[in-house]
């Protein structure tokens, strides 16, 4: 008898522990905050309270990184951990505002000649590097010649059009292009073309392995302090920042803490050991669970518009037939993907150009109206095409490759599979480790279809051209081998025209052609959102995940 009493007590203890774990945050279920719905992932609007800059100064912010930075030099990488850290230390010539207007940063103003071939930048005066040296046009010229044009993963291609870099005086620099290129300005932000100090990097040592990449000197709002491997990089306020007269940066210290697991990241946030979890580290389920929690603030629109695309291999049958793709799209319930996978926080795509990319998206095309969800219609069209069902009710089998690391892709893949089963198409899921999937998709090209996220980087030319241009046959480009003279012409004209207004008409036309040809199906306009600890006031005017952190401050310190 005695024996069983003890077993009972132990079991009760185990159950108690299990019960405690069920709810997650204790207070979360009792409150519900109204939040703006729609695309931006339930934005809780935060207005700047009146109050002097002095009140905002002070405090430490701990930001979660996914993984450990490879280096702190943002000019040579697109890795998010490197950029989140490096772009607090370094800056580009310009930055974006929420509408993708170009704002000054290290360049105070600029002129572009009417033929679009000459760019003159007037650099900000009185800016110093963190070691006290003056920032001049020599630094910019040296960086463009030796780093950006060689190693800038996103900008090197654009710089092949730059034929001459001229230092006019200490604070003026001129770029001459061989042909007009409307996207040049959007490639001069920190994450694409950070400016490095010539007096540090000009010593002849290799840029990629330069020792100062681990101990950098920049012009940005925060200075490098220390790096404890596996734990965190600590940054401290740059007292001589060029926005110092506005009191910026407000924070004394930023600690960039690295995590290897999304679960550990969210748990650290809930335990108060981390203050900010940004878009790249945050899964949408955790965001949805915690965004209205009184302990946290959910902020939407914290990254460039990123979409998930279901991409077809146009060299394989029957996907090479546009009529088949037009039938498949009708069987896909993208509204369900948004509801089930994204809790309604994302946007149902209307065209191949993200609706949040306002300057390039016309609003004239609506995929959901062109191809309304209808299993019946899809079945009828496939029947008419002669793709009849076999004894098992199957018309054909195709595979779907996606990254196993992203739970949202996995859940979306399940929905696609269910959707296609309704029309007699067997979708075989092939979840692969990202590193492996990259090779399968881009090098081996061994896939029928794949599901992937694509960052627009705020510009069709920069982010999306690589999906559609015939000539984009190199690695990481146009994996489905879509090719259309019409699309190529529109992309080239869109790139050559200047200014958003000049370029938009070509992209509006492009939307129509892509909606007709369907080289891929946009599945979701992914919500980009950060979670902040209550009391921390977020960045106000940047869609770029990496810029603007000097504006963050504690309204109320924890």
């Amino acid at each position: 008898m005695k024996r069983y009493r003890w077993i009972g007590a132990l079991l009760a203890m185990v159950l108690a522990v299990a019960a405690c774990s069920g709810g997650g945050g204790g207070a979360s279920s009792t409150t519900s905050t109204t939040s703006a719905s729609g695309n931006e992932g339930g934005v809780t609007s935060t207005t700047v309270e009146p109050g002097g800059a002095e009140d905002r100064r002070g405090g430490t912010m701990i930001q979660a990184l996914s993984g450990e930075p490879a280096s702190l030099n943002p000019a040579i990488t697109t890795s998010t951990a490197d950029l989140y850290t490096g772009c607090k230390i370094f800056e580009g010539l310009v930055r974006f505002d929420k509408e993708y207007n170009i704002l000054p940063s290290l360049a105070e103003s600029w002129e572009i000649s009417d033929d679009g071939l000459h760019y003159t930048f007037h650099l900000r005066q009185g800016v110093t590097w963190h070691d006290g040296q003056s920032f001049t046009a020599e630094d910019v010229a040296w960086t463009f010649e030796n780093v950006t044009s060689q190693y800038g993963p996103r900008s090197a291609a654009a710089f092949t059009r730059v034929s001459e870099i001229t230092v006019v005086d200490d604070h003026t620099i001129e770029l001459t292009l061989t042909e007009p290129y409307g996207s040049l300005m959007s490639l001069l932000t920190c994450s694409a073309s950070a400016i490095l100090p010539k007096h540090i990097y000009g010593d002849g040592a290799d840029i990629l392995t330069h020792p100062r990449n681990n101990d950098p000197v920049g012009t940005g709002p925060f200075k490098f302090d220390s790096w404890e491997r596996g734990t965190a990089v600590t940054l401290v306020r740059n007292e001589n920042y060029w926005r110092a007269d506005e009191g910026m940066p407000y924070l004394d210290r930023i600690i960039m803490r690295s995590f290897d697991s999304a679960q550990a990241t969210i748990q650290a946030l809930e335990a108060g050991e981390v203050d900010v979890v940004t878009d790249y580290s945050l899964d949408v389920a955790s965001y949805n669970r915690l965004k209205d929690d009184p302990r946290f603030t959910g902020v939407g629109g914290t990254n460039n518009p990123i979409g998930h695309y279901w991409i077809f291999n146009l060299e394989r049958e029957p996907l090479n037939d546009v009529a088949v793709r037009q039938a498949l799209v009708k069987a896909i319930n993208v509204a369900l993907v948004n509801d089930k996978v994204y809790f309604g926080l994302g946007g149902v795509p209307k065209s191949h150009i993200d609706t949040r990319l306002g300057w390039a998206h016309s609003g004239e095309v609506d995929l959901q109206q062109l191809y309304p969800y209808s299993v019946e219609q899809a079945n009828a069209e496939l029947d008419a095409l002669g793709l009849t069902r076999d004894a098992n009710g199957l018309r054909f089998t195709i595979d779907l490759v996606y990254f196993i690391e992203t739970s949202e892709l996995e859940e979306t893949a399940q929905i696609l599979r269910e959707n296609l089963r309704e029309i007699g198409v067997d979708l075989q899921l092939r979840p692969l480790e990202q590193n492996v999937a990259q090779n399968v998709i881009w090098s081996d090209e061994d896939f029928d279809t794949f599901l992937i996220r694509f960052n627009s980087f705020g510009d069709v030319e920069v982010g999306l051209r690589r999906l559609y241009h015939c000539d984009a046959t190199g690695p990481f480009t146009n994996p489905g081998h879509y090719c259309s003279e019409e699309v190529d012409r529109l992309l080239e004209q869109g790139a050559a025209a200047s200014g958003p207004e000049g370029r938009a008409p070509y992209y509006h036309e492009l939307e129509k052609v892509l909606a007709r040809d369907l080289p891929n199906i946009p599945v979701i306009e992914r919500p980009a959102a950060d979670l902040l600890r209550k009391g921390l006031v977020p960045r106000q005017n940047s869609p770029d995940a990496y810029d603007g952190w000097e504006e963050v401050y504690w309204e109320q310190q924890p």
Partner: protein
Amino acid sequence: MNSVLRYSLGRAAQSIPLLLVVVCAAFALVKAAPGDPVTALAGDFPISEEYRLEVESRYGLDQPWPVQLLKYLGSVVRGDLGFSFMNNEDVSTLIWQRLGPTVLLTGGAMLLASIGGVVVGTLAARRPGGVVDVSSQLAAFAAYAMPVFWLGQLLIMLFAIKLGWLPAGGMRSLRDPKTGFEGVLQVGKHMILPAVVFAARYFAITMRVVRDGVIGGMDSDYSIAARARGVRERRILVSHALRNAMLPVVTILSLNLGFAMSGTVLIETVYNWPGLGRLLFDAIGSRDYPVVAGVFIVLTSAVVVINLIADILYGVLDPRVTE
């Protein structure tokens, strides 16, 4: 003692070819896995073919793999573990920075498991089938069966998030780092959850072995003889039965340490502990060959050394071995 020394040196010499084989095997395994480091290095934006070739030739990745392996072995013999292009740092520096936390956590957990296992095992053996025995057996069963990551997250939710008594992860507070004695206390506080979770499984094994050994010892001839001489039960338990049950505990401890070294990946990821396990996890994900091979070498060496120590200790505990 001289024979013990010669024996130890001989064992150490034997382990060198073993290490070479392990390094080659690790290298081959990583190479055979699909995926490539340049892709991982480039991040999520496409890179041009020129850039790829440039990076590959810079790091010698364009050479055939036997050449890469031979070059690597050559430098390892010279004590150079190579350069990690993913971390822009020497591999030996990286490993050195991350070794301390792993040794601390593993050592702490094994100490906890061993002491806890011996104490609870002995208490349980005092009255087989009694309250202590049954409940500790049940606890050991649960501790052995529960997956580390699951138990780890459960305890984080309870003690870090719900109750707020203990930190959820890391080795010290980043917001408010302490130094000196307070710093030691802070690390200790951060160690409690990972060490307990890490120790659970090894506690279970040790406890069972000690319990069975002590029960057997209490029934053995020498205990009966001691009882006949009028020695008290408690003294028989501690000085006779437990002492004899300690020999297998040493063996188990050395085996446990070997397994635990490889278990650091899970526990360090769950508790965001800045040790070798997470370094290895990162390195495998990014195909950082020099780091993977370097960590393997260090972990294998550690296991070999631990086994050596266990052999020597065995000799000290049991005089028959050294004869």
